[in-house]
């Protein structure tokens, strides 16, 4: 990406104006609004879940229904291997997926932005070493690395989160470095330098605010990837063994005999849930990306 595209204005009132213009453009895109609607609905559901789901509904012992029963009036999506309602599990499963996806993305953004800003600002040897490490991580297959990390750290949400962050920062670092280079080529940086701004000040006060929109875009798309990664790792059995998540539901469906009995009601819902949430983040991310950078190839 080159320097000459978007120029978020520097002063406060124009910046507010830019934000309003951005909101208008966002609202004008049906796909963007659909994505936002999906994300709002899923977030509300995840936050409200403890209000109507009791821990007893999620317990494997004394489950209310028959194991692996097809959909009925009492259990609209059928039951799982222990006799729990799949609908309840599905709603509860939003929580770990969203939480891990968002936290892992936060870590990814911090790591990727720091490395990208440093490499872009300092250039020379620092940049070369940092980018060599970044490229190395990009080339490496991510799943085996994440599996290795998560296995060594032990089953659980924390190790999955760390594994995702460690394997997904390089894309962000590359993007942020490119944007930093673009911003630093602009005259106001030279002005700030002439006025005596030091490196730290320059990066934090001048470069970061101009790179921030790209961090935002990158994070929306990274959440989508992180949720897919989370379900993959949970499916492979690396998640918290007693927690209910979409990945672990699919794992149990496969290994507790539901699949060989043709229990489609057990397998379909978690996969569709993953698809919808990933789609929501992707739609919003792509829309923001297109608004900020109109020259990007792809849909209008």
């Amino acid at each position, binding site marked *: *990406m080159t320097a000459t595209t978007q120029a978020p204005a520097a002063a406060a009132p124009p910046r507010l104006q830019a934000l309003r213009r951005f909101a208008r453009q966002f609202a004008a895109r049906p796909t963007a609004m659909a994505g936002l609607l999906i994300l709002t609905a899923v977030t509300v559901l995840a936050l409200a879940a403890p209000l109507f789901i009791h821990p007893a509904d999620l317990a494997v012992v004394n489950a209310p229904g028959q194991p692996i029963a097809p959909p009925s009036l009492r259990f609209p999506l059928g039951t799982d291997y222990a006799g729990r309602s799949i609908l309840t599990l599905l709603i509860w499963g939003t929580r770990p997926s969203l939480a891990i996806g968002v936290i892992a993305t936060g870590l*990814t953004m911090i790591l*990727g932005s720091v490395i990208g800003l440093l490499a872009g600002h300092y250039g020379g040897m620092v940049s070369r070493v940092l980018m060599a490490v970044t*490229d*190395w991580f*990009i*080339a*490496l*297959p*991510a*799943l*085996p690395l*994440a*599996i*290795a990390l998560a*296995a*060594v*750290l032990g089953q659980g949400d924390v190790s999955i989160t760390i594994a*995702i962050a460690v*394997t*997904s920062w390089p*894309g*962000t670092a*590359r*993007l942020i470095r*490119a944007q930093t280079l673009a911003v630093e080529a602009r005259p106001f940086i030279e002005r700030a330098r002439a006025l005596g701004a030091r490196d730290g000040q320059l990066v934090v006060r001048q470069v970061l605010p101009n790179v921030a929109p790209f961090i935002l*875009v*990158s994070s929306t798309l*990274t959440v*989508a*990837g992180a*949720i*897919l*990664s989370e*379900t*993959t*790792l949970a*499916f*492979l*059995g*690396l998640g918290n063994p007693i927690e209910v998540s979409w990945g672990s539901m*699919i794992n149990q*469906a*496969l290994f507790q005999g539901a*699949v*060989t*009995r*043709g*229990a*489609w009601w057990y*397998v*379909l819902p978690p*996969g569709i849930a*993953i*698809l919808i949430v*990933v*789609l929501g983040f*992707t739609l919003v*991310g792509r829309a923001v990306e297109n608004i900020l950078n109109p020259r990007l*190839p792809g849909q209008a």
Partner: protein
Amino acid sequence: MSSTSAPLSRQGLSALEAPSGAGASGARDFAHYLARKLAAAVVSFMMLLVVGFIIFSLMPSNPVEALTRGRPTSPKQLAFLTKQLGLNQPVWERFGHFVANTFQGHLGYSWQFETPVATLIAQRLWPTLLLMGSSTIVSILVGMWLGIHSGWRPGRLLDRVSTGAAITFWSVPTFWLGIILLVVFSVGFGPIPALFPAGGMSTPGTAGGLSPAHILDVGRHLVLPCLTLVLVVFAQYQMIMRSSMIDELGSPYLLTARAKGLRDVEVRQRHAVPNALLPTVTLIFLQVGTMISGAITVETVYSWPGLGYLTFQALQIPDLPLLEGTFIIFSASVIVFNLLADLAYRWLDPRVRRA
């Protein structure tokens, strides 16, 4: 270029930028270029060993405990292990031993199978190669055909339908797609009978070898895992082929070809396709990372006895020496294929060769 982070199982597109930049940067002759790329690959491999060493030898606070977790071990065994792992030696010496062992093919000893890791990997290599090779070939054929035709006439029905399908399969988790295919075609669903076996690589109890019956049996077992991988992977070939076809559409040489009076099919196949082919060819090598991630989950779903299923089996213990072995093999093969991608790119593109 939009470098967004791909999820674990979807790589390749971001790496695609690498060879074009690297090729154009002007090495004088091929030997020079080869030496530079080889050196870079060796550095990558050394970095891989450092990372592998950090993860598997430094991160577990007590590797002996991690190795024997969930297994009854006598104090004598513990002492033997501590000595065998060289935990009483300084870190640098341990790393030196690790590097020396890896280069000699000693990847440790699996706890679960009580066999050397290298032997296990050698046993499981062939099924994985069969699965990855067959699905790569099918994906290339399907993806390129769709890409050529949808790129030649962008916006037509075929373009819209196939691009939509590609994007949908792209955003579905691989293992879930595999399970759905398993339910539909192997267990049987509604009017669809159970067409294919549910797992494994051959029917238990049948004779192995190269008899036609056995080959047919393996083929029947291969259909569903191969189909799953193809559905996930063909999209990349299609999208790359489509966009490079669209790039060629406005080229003057196509106008010349048309002016000569060539039919549309000839213009497409003889002139546009060969020029649009280049990015797709390098993609084949760069897809190895995606294929490996896909193989891990797909082999798990279908209990296909390859390296991916071996990784899954190792995870259940967790069998750390075995995990370390598969991690190094997977990553090393990606490094090798990236090197091959660089070489193929240079060999195929005369502009880069001359630069």
